[in-house]
């Protein structure tokens, strides 16, 4: 019996959307207000979905405390109240759009997953990120 469990987390961070391979005029036209040279911030929400079978004894598909620890250590602690462009290595070269942020969150979770949840444990299924109430990016495995 497979169930899909989703857990939501939140962190606040600042960023600036600006690509060094584009001209100033192109950056402004593509990213609009998000290109402001001083940066700006969001309250991000991250939803992590896992799937697997329900343990007959515990009734759980995943150890929620272990999932919380993994997300806290890999995502929330390094991103919380940070300037993503300056303080998160990958965004020194990549533009911290919601799309690239979702890729990076998924990559970090995938990297830590086998140690936290060895096979045949729960599987990572997808990540959704809310940049605002109206901007949501979803990425599956």
């Amino acid at each position: 019996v497979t169930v899909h469990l989703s857990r939501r987390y939140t962190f606040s961070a600042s960023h600036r959307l600006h690509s060094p391979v584009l001209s100033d005029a192109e950056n402004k036209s593509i990213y609009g207000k998000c290109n402001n040279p001083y940066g700006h911030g969001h309250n991000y929400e991250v939803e992590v979905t896992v799937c697997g079978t329900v343990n007959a004894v515990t009734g759980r598909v995943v150890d929620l405390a272990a999932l919380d620890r993994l997300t806290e250590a890999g995502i929330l602690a390094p991103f919380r109240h940070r300037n993503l462009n300056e303080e998160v290595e990958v965004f020194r070269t990549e533009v911290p759009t919601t799309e690239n942020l979702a890729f990076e969150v998924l990559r970090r979770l995938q990297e830590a997953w086998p140690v936290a949840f060895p096979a045949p444990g729960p599987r990572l299924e997808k990540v959704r990120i809310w940049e605002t109430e109206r901007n949501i990016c979803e990425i599956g495995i």
Partner: protein
Amino acid sequence: MIISKKVEFSASHICRSPQLSDSENERIYGAAANPLGHGHNYTVEVAIEGAPEPVTGMILDLKHLKDILEAKVLNVYDHRLLNREVTPFDRVVPTVENMAIDIWNRLEAHIDATGRARLYSVRVHETNELFVEYRGENT
């Protein structure tokens, strides 16, 4: 095409397994292991898959769906202590995972007698931060 309906109920539960020690129960369920119980406002989102009937333009009669949800879920779960008052939670721990499976099992056969619509998924939100989706045994 998929149509969804949301309903809410409030209930209390105790997440403890008699097959585990006190310390294991507390490690696994945390605050939810409190033997005196605690409660949530649950939201259940039921998704129905089917094609609209050509004359009515509807996948199924939503009043019928509302009545089924009331009879099979809300009347059973609302304002109850799940461990004591709702089977199968005298035998299995009333985690949100097991609740989604139980609600599916209570609804599946009753959704539509004509075979035009079928139950696609059941989502149970325990808090704003946690929900489970179940799509039946074969998925």
